């Protein structure tokens, strides 16, 4: 493409290039997911790879999920108790903690923690495979990198995120119990009883749908950034940063849209 010589038109050209490039990137991003979804439904599935990824995304994230879940619940318990006590309605601490955990914080925090803990590592791993030409080697061996690499990661994301979210929710509710009941002196019957009254199955399924979606979003964004990394170590480090930023932003944006659509 020839560079426009005259200066007044140069900003216009660079704007156009930026537009075309970002449109191309978005198209590639969407096609990447589309291709992975198609390969998901074409047997055989690489089961051992899938196990390895469930271990990588799920089991390795367990400790960080337990820790952050407990402290999120404790903070929620503490702050909500202080707010509610101004209105004399401390009895509603249980439902307040449970609803905010189950509907919003559980899915979102789990997704953000897994992004930081595992998503970045996924991007780096796939990125290094790309720059050391291991992905090309897989192709040369006649294997499909989509089927061998990406599909197990996506499926493992979909399988592990709801489980991690459920663990986060339960640990958070127990953390709220610790602060509300053991420290602030609410009765344990009030905490759990009111929770049972106000939390409905719709709240739990909303949270689960969100976590399914985040499972796709995080693994999709992170494996995409690794798969199309630029050459060199700088390329991998940039891809890792971009993957974390992209999936965190997508999580929060998508959370709003799902929250406004789901009951």
């Amino acid at each position, binding site marked *: 493409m020839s560079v426009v010589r005259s200066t007044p038109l140069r900003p216009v050209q660079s704007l156009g290039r930026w537009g075309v490039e970002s449109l191309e990137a978005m198209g590639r991003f969407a096609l990447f997911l589309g291709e992975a979804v198609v390969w998901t439904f074409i047997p055989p599935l690489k089961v*051992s790879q899938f*196990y*390895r990824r*469930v*271990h990588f995304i*799920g*089991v390795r994230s*367990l400790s960080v999920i337990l820790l952050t879940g407990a402290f999120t619940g404790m903070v929620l318990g503490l702050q909500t108790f202080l707010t509610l006590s101004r209105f004399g309605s401390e009895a509603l601490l249980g439902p307040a903690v*449970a609803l905010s955990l*189950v509907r919003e914080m559980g899915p979102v925090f789990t997704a953000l923690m897994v992004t930081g803990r595992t998503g970045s590592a996924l991007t780096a791993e796939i990125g290094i495979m790309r720059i050391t030409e291991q992905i090309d080697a897989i192709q040369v061996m006649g294997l499909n990198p989509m089927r061998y690499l990406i599909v197990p990661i996506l499926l493992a994301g979909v399988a*592990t995120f*709801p*489980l*991690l979210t*459920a*663990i986060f*929710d*339960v640990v958070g509710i127990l953390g709220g119990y610790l602060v509300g009941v053991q420290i602030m002196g609410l009765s344990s019957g009030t905490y759990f009883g009111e*929770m*049972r*009254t*106000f*939390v*409905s*199955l719709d*709240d*739990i*399924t909303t949270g*689960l749908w969100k976590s399914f979606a985040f499972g796709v979003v995080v693994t999709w964004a992170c494996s995409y950034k690794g798969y199309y990394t630029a050459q060199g170590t700088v390329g991998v480090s940039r891809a890792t940063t971009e993957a974390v930023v992209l999936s965190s932003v997508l999580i929060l944006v998508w959370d709003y849209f799902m929250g406004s659509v789901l009951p």
Partner: protein
Amino acid sequence: MKRTNLELTVGGFVLIGILALGYLSINLGRVELLGRRGYMIFADFPTVGGLKSGSSVEIAGVEVGRVDSIRLANYQARVTFRIQEGVKLQEDTIASIKTKGLIGEKYVRLSPGGSDRVIQSGGQIREVEAPVDLEELIGKYIFGQVE
């Protein structure tokens, strides 16, 4: 890592996750795991005022069933209850819609009667009491019409 170890930890993780999911949905979401048991009866209320399907049905504060569905029948609210097996309701049982606390959720309180005949499955509770409309009551109080 050895393959058996990998499978073991993955299995353990899935187990913990499913236990957590089960706790959430059974304890908080009130999913009935062993199918729906109990028998159905219904009652027609002039208004249900905030009662929802899934609201609890209590006798003396003890939960004996749940509201199954609410629909319109002959310009009245027909509320169908699912009552636990073994709870016998006399024919002159009174069903009233009450509120837990001042702003709590609505529930149905059954006051047992003294009749010898019990309501069969699919039967109707004839004695009903509509919920108290707090706003209306306050309005009446302000304009001095409370007897």
